[in-house]
């Protein structure tokens, strides 16, 4: 079948979302992961043992969100109207409730970091009286704060996947497993960041154990994703072919799965069993794999479409 639709001048292939979206999805998941484990270890009372995860690493979260939000804003074509997002709540649109979640979690992440400033820098002085008052208020209610943060960080990380899975017109994205998959992947990149920053071996071992669980879950979900495609309709098979001999085969299986998941998880297991592995290698690979995963999914998804 020859279709006039494929004549570039009349009907170019849809490629609207570029690196901005991939980068944001990566940073959103990363920030979600960092904040989740910071709140989690605070709630279970491991603030001292896991000081990097609870305090130091959370510096990265607002930073990541800031860069991520900037790239989202940069991607908008009608930038000056971005505030329209916050004039309405639309539950059917993941982008809408995602934007609201970001609006709440971004300042919360800053407040979380700020409330630990005196712990981390003993000479820190907030200068203004009301800031000090606010700080003692936050410190007093840190536990409920941590619960809220934990809840929102799950929504944030899941949302990075659901944003894509909400589009039935793009068969690669339109799978319900994408939400959990992005959640697990985002949390794994968050763990990797805390692991990289931590100078405490005991802390790193705990993080590494959790991360192994997350990476194995991610591999399990990826297998499920592809089993779903394989058993799917023509449009799903088309999506499947992009990864099985198609243009995303190498970038996905080599860079995401092998280098970004299987290799680092093997290194983490070896490290836990006493082998010496440079401490920056597994986190770097996990972060690289996580970023690649978003690039591949965003790019490949836009190629897939209904066949008619």
């Amino acid at each position, binding site marked *: 079948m020859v*279709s006039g639709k494929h004549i570039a001048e009349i*009907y170019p292939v849809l490629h609207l979302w570029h690196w901005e979206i991939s980068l944001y999805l990566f940073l959103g998941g990363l920030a979600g992961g960092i904040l989740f484990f910071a709140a989690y270890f605070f709630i279970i009372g491991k603030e001292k043992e896991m000081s990097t995860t609870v305090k130091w690493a959370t510096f990265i979260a607002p930073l990541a969100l800031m860069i991520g939000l900037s790239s989202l804003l940069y991607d*908008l074509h009608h930038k000056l109207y971005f505030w329209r*997002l916050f004039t309405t709540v639309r539950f059917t649109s993941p982008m809408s409730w995602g934007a609201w979640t970001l609006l709440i979690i971004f300042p919360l992440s800053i407040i979380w970091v700020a409330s630990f400033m005196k712990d981390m820098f003993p000479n820190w002085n907030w200068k203004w009286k009301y800031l000090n008052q606010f700080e003692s208020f936050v410190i007093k209610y840190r536990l409920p704060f941590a619960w809220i943060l934990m809840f929102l960080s799950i929504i944030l990380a899941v949302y990075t996947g659901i944003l894509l899975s909400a589009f039935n017109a793009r068969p690669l994205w339109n799978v319900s497993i994408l939400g959990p998959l992005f959640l697990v992947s985002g949390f794994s990149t968050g763990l990797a960041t805390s692991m990289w920053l931590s100078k405490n071996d005991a802390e790193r071992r705990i993080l590494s154990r959790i991360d192994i669980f997350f990476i194995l879950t991610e591999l399990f979900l990826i297998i499920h994703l592809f089993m779903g495609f394989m058993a799917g309709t023509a449009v799903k098979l088309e999506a499947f072919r992009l990864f099985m001999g198609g243009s995303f085969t190498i970038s996905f299986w080599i860079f995401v799965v092998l280098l970004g998941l299987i290799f680092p998880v093997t290194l983490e297991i070896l490290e836990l069993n006493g082998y010496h592995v440079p401490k920056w290698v597994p986190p770097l690979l996990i972060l690289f794999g996580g970023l690649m995963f978003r690039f591949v999914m965003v790019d490949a998804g836009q190629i897939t479409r209904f066949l008619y």
Partner: protein
Amino acid sequence: MRYAMAVDTKKCVGCADCVVACQTENNVPHGFCRDWIVENVKGTYPSLDMKFQSERCNQCENAPCVRCCPTGASHIVEGGIVLVTHDDCIGCGACVEACPYDARYIHPQGYVDKCTFCIQRVDKGQNPACVDVCPTYCLHFGDLDDPNSDVSKALKNRSWYVLAPEAGTEPQLYYLR
């Protein structure tokens, strides 16, 4: 009231007059179009079969673009026409990704644009520009709730299909076989 359009694929010759009429009527920027022609050739020589389809926004009953829009800029008005309020649109592209028919594009001014069934003409009781200009009279427009409308009559006597019904969008652009 339910506005719809029927495209007679037996009569369409793919002249693209509808495309040009639309661009003129709606001031569509150069290089973009709200409607377009798809040419399908099936079979192998010498038994070839060619079909032309004039395509545009399907003004879906269950519109995924409206569902995905984070600001409510994409909305459905009376008569079932899907519109975009330019000043509410942030140009995020969610609706463009959401459309199974790829009927939307980002206007150079930043907002998303698409076929409106020429609502400015329809409101005055006229046909969309593409319908009026078609030299083979292959486009039929009107209200499906009115049995005497052009589109109702066209659909009554012919067999028809819609594009990607499996998308669940309940499209209102009908193609006569």
